């Protein structure tokens, strides 16, 4: 029998959900006035429970009598149809449920708890539980109701909604699977047929690749099975093999032509290899570009692992689930690094279309950017917070071109003992799956992420969208660390894109593997052998366990309520053999999977556009410009997001994302102390400048590296111990110009890395970030994202007591500007708020940058710097304003003192240019001599002082025209208000 327990807000308490639905409906233009009541509910299937027992379950387990009123009844009863505290309500009931098979963490915890509870009332079986949400709405037309249902209440990718009572009386639990081996008639297909198969089978392989597969099987005189094709497609997917960037590329730019056999290897990896060779014995890189995360040395006992991933395509369709599983996935990457690292902090960077994009202007199937932003933030929040990993760093960028392709970068740092940094599967080891069960969720995520999104993606690829279950992953993490410390396994990796197929394929690459697919625990009946193999169900790790340790592994996992199952064996055959009920369904050589992909030569070209002059407006007062930049979305305070993240769990927080008197100033970087009885700190920061890429992606990449370094150095990191990661998100790289702009950025990464002696240790790319739709006139439109390179930096500080923050500390101190200002306005925020075009993107003088970082670091180490902030978007004026209002200390600056590369740099340039490698530092008068001597040889000047007034004043010259004059409160309000919902 199916029972329902509804929990309504107790009479007299606020119905928060109703208020938020009303607000979101109003954004769709449905203003009503609407009368809304909400409830959350549980559907409980049990053959034996009676009404008094359900009542007891409702009052003692499910509801809180202080704030909630439960109503219980068998499904179909009238009591469930009306809100209890709304007499005379005449409206409609909408009910929202997760689609069958979508992860429902609340239901799964509720099942466990209800079974335990019912065991205390005699042995009452609980078969299944599902959750639902109920909305009673009056004041909306039928059409409006449907719109509220589909755009506010339910996301079709994962949820279904019903108007009126539920049309079922039992919970669907899947049906039995009948094994039947599927083969694919490949030999009969012509090129067109091959491509149709590639597309319709969601393999997303290119023609040459399909032909190679066809020839391979023709030579064997066999037809492939479906699972063999899938295994090849997964392994050869862009997501898993990075075939574009790690492939052959013919590149041409204004400096001539260059052929790459493996572009990434010859640019970014090559720089790291050269640095490691240069350092010799002092090499502090441990494992780079080979494992799930890059590893560097930290202290005498521990190393640090760092990885940043993207989860763009799923987040476009279902922001909450996409971001949720994005952070869950990258955490598994660090857990799956070496013999398992312990995650110590997260970093998250997002790119969205502006939140005020008119809803009416959205192309079909595109979600409202504000909804995307809220969903993504909630997804990261709920997963990161539950995992107990502090989210300490991040950024949010806005550009209209992210409308169809929002970007979600999730990063994680892990701590790993030196001796645990490497792993090696041994022949004969058991293949053990640990953690979540396998379901139909996430089928084709790896191949899907290699495809362009279209307005139909929502229906085609719903299966690749998932919800995470953070508590499952937390349990897995706890038990993995215990297993690791007892030395019970020889290797570990995560189940990410491609599921078992990728995890086992990677681990068994050098040896061979046999997998017994029928043994994998499944969430429900009915999964085919192929679905089990390629499912990307979350929260699963794969271990290789020596047979003698299996019993201990099993016991320890059971102790912590984690499921562990032997699903196969690493057999020294060099083959991948898959069986279902003892029948072989796949038999491929590892060589074909990992080396069989045909090389494709891609063309890439880049021609820098000639620099157009920018017409800078000349005014008597630039206060308004400053406020506009402070209030522009990229610069504006992200406090409403940051405060939803736990940034202090694990007890090592040193420099928080928000600093200053009111704890609301924008910190340059975060510092955490991962070992509680040590003073050594980890510094996390990032740099990203998509707007510069519209001018030249070389300067964009160089600027992003410089910015990430500046942010690290500004809080006290040692610039000779900063490791960085690259994450390329680009458009369609089959287009030679798009690919050219990427190669050019990679060349900048190579050059900067070598000069700064800052190694890249890991990276990832996400290509094909383009969105196509057919507009009202029937024309196909494509929106490509701007080239977007995220540089994430991980620095170190020997004693966290040396760290500085960006808030001004006291009146009467000197303000020094370090670094040269050039008139660089291309892609600047001054141009953005004034609608200016032209100019050149800021360049980096890498040699000077290296010296500047080293000199400033020494000055900070010696304690001569009271506060320090890097100059980025909005230049000097914005940096000074942020420092002043964060510290509630006034400042007065003299622009004539600003060090410039040329006399001709005017007032606007000195105020707002975004030249790289610049810092504003507060120094006590008594420390000035020491500070200045540390910076000898670097361009710097004392440009002003801190004051006891609560204003920021910037003059053209001492006694000259005042160009900026504002109360700190006004500036802060301009900065805080745009994103303060």
């Amino acid at each position, binding site marked *: 029998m199916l029972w329902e327990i509804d929990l309504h807000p107790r009479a007299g308490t606020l119905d928060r959900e109703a208020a938020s639905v009303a607000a979101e409906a109003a954004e769709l233009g449905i203003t009503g006035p609407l009368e809304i009541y909400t409830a959350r509910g549980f559907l409980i299937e049990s053959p034996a429970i009676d009404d008094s027992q359900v009542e007891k379950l409702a009052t003692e387990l499910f509801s809180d009598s202080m704030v909630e009123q439960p109503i219980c009844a068998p499904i179909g009863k009238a009591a469930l149809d009306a809100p209890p505290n709304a007499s005379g309500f005449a409206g409609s009931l909408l009910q929202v449920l997760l689609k069958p098979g979508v992860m429902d*963490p609340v239901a799964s915890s509720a099942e466990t708890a209800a079974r335990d*509870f019912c065991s205390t009332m005699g042995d009452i079986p609980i078969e299944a539980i599902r959750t639902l949400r109920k909305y009673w709405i009056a004041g909306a037309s039928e059409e409006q109701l449907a719109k509220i249902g589909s755009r506010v209440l339910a996301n079709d990718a994962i949820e279904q909604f019903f108007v009126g009572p539920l049309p079922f009386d039992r919970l669907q639990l899947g049906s039995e699977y009948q094994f039947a081996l599927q083969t694919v008639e490949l030999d009969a297909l012509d090129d067109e047929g091959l491509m149709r198969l590639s597309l319709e089978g969601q393999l997303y392989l290119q023609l040459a690749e399909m032909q190679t597969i066809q020839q391979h099987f023709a030579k064997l005189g066999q037809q492939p099975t479906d699972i063999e094709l899938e295994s090849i497609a997964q392994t050869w997917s862009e997501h898993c093999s990075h075939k574009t960037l790690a492939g052959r590329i013919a590149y041409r730019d204004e400096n001539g032509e260059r052929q790459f056999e493996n572009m990434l290897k010859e640019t970014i990896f090559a720089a790291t290899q050269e640095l490691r060779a240069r350092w010799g014995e002092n090499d502090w890189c441990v494992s780079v570009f080979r494992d799930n995360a890059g590893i560097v040395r930290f202290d005498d006992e521990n190393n640090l692992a760092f990885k940043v991933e993207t989860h763009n395509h799923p987040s476009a369709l279902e922001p909450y689930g996409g971001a949720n599983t994005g952070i869950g996935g990258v955490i598994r990457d660090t857990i799956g690094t070496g013999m398992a690292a312990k995650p110590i902090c997260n970093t998250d960077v997002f790119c969205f279309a502006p939140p005020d994009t008119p809803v009416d202007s959205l192309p079909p199937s595109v979600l409202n950017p504000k909804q995307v932003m809220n969903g993504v933030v909630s997804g990261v929040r709920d997963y990161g917070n539950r995992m107990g990993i502090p989210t300490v760093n991040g950024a949010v960028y806005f550009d209209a071109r992210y409308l169809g392709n929002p970007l979600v970068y999730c990063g994680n740092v892990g701590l790993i003992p030196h001796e645990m940094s490497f792993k090696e599967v041994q022949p004969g080891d058991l293949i053990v799956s640990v953690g979540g069960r396998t379901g139909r969720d996430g089928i084709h995520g790896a191949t899907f992420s290699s495809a362009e999104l279209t307005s139909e993606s929502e229906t085609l690829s719903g299966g690749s969208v998932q919800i995470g279950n953070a508590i499952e992953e937390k349990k897995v993490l706890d038990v993995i660390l215990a297993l690791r410390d007892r030395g019970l396994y020889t290797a570990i990796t995560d189940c990410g894109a491609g599921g078992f197929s990728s995890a086992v394929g990677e681990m068994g690459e050098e040896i061979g593997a046999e997998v017994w697919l029928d043994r994998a625990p499944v969430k429900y009946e009915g999964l085919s052998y192929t679905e089990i193999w390629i499912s990307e169900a979350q929260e699963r790790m794969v271990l290789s366990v020596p047979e003698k340790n299996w019993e201990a592994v099993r016991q320890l996992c059971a102790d912590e309520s984690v499921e562990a199952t032997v699903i196969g064996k690493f057999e020294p055959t060099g083959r991948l053999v898959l069986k279902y009920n003892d029948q072989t369904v796949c038999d491929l050589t590892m060589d074909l999977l990992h080396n069989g992909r045909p090389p494709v030569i891609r063309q890439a070209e880049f021609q820098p556009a000639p620099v157009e002059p920018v017409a800078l407006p000349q005014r008597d007062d630039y206060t308004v410009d400053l406020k506009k930049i402070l209030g522009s979305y990229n610069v504006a305070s992200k406090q409403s997001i940051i405060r*939803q993240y736990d940034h202090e769990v*694990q007890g090592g927080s040193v420099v*928080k994302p928000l*600093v200053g008197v009111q704890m609301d100033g924008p910190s340059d970087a975060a510092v955490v102390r991962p070992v509680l009885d040590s003073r050594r700190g980890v510094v996390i920061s990032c740099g990203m400048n998509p707007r510069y890429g519209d001018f030249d992606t070389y300067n964009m990449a160089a600027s992003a590296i410089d910015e990430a370094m500046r942010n690290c150095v500004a809080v006290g990191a040692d610039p000779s111990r900063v490791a960085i990661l690259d994450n390329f998100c680009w458009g369609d790289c089959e287009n030679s110009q798009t690919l050219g702009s990427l190669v050019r950025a990679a060349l900048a990464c190579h050059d900067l890395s070598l000069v700064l002696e800052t190694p890249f240790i890991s990276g990832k790319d996400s290509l094909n970030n383009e969105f196509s739709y057919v507009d009202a006139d029937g024309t196909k439109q494509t929106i490509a994202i701007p080239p977007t390179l995220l540089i994430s930096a991980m620095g170190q500080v020997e004693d966290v007591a040396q760290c500085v923050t960006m808030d001004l500390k006291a009146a009467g101190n000197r303000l020094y500007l370090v670094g040269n200002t050039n008139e660089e306005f291309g892609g600047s925020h001054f141009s953005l708020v004034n609608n200016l075009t032209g100019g050149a993107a800021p360049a980096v003088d890498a040699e000077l940058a290296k010296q500047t970082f080293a000199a400033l670091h020494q000055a900070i180490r010696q304690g001569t710097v009271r506060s320090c902030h890097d100059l980025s978007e909005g230049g000097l004026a914005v940096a000074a304003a942020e420092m002043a209002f964060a510290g509630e200390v006034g400042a007065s600056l003299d622009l004539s003192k600003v060090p410039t590369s040329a006399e001709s740099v005017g007032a606007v340039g000195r105020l707002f240019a975004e030249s790289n490698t610049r810092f504003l530092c507060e120094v006590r008068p008594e420390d000035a001599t020491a500070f200045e001597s540390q910076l000898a040889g670097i361009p710097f000047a004392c440009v002003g002082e801190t004051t006891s007034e609560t204003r920021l004043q910037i003059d053209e010259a001492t006694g000259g025209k005042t160009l900026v004059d504002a109360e700190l409160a006004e500036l802060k309000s301009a900065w805080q208000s745009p994103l303060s919902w």
Partner: protein
Amino acid sequence: MPKPRILILRAPGTNCDVETAFAFEHAGGQAESLHLNRLLEAPQLAADYQILCIPGGFSFGDDVAAGRIFANQIRHHLADVMQEFRAAGKLVLGICNGFQVLIKSGLLDTDDDRGPTASLSWNDSGRYLARWVQVSADNKKCVFLAGCDELFLPIAHAEGKFVARDQEAFEQLEQAGQLVLRYSGNASDYNPNGSLGDVAGVCDQTGRVFGLMPHPERFIDPTQHPQWTRLPKQGEGAGLQLFRNAVRFFS
């Protein structure tokens, strides 16, 4: 005098166990982490300890409601053990999620014959909030708060709003001296979640069982203070006092 032994009781989703154990050790205790499953299998294990602490986190995902599933495990399977523990003059501390567990399991003497009189519910904002708050302590009754007055500590929760069944129930707890920690200060948002009576922490009638929403284990080192770069050098964080009080209670 041997060091008092502290049992850090963790469940699936507990995530502040390591730093809480560190705080107790730093205060001079000997802390050990134990999975709830072990205590359910062998409740007598509790007898080996003087202090039991339920640390912060999201036990069982906070699914259904924060701390509820853990609390029900205590109500149904560990009630006797916990009562014996308290009757033996020992200490129990619940931090954040641990406070949610304690109040929902009835261990804070907040139940009467009509059922629970107080609970912790969703923040007024409807969302998770991480920030620092000022709290003022009533240090007369509660062992953990001895010598404490005004404290500055971080909170990080979504369901920390203290609610009472009715005014009468609230007054009863107040008169019993159980509402020992309250959000304070002059800022307009000094009460971060809308708690009734600004309540941030509650103790039982003996003063030896205590739950609080702020995280004292996150302010042990001076560099954990959000404004430490503005302040004169300090020796330790204010949160350490609570752990020291607990450890010293047994010396």
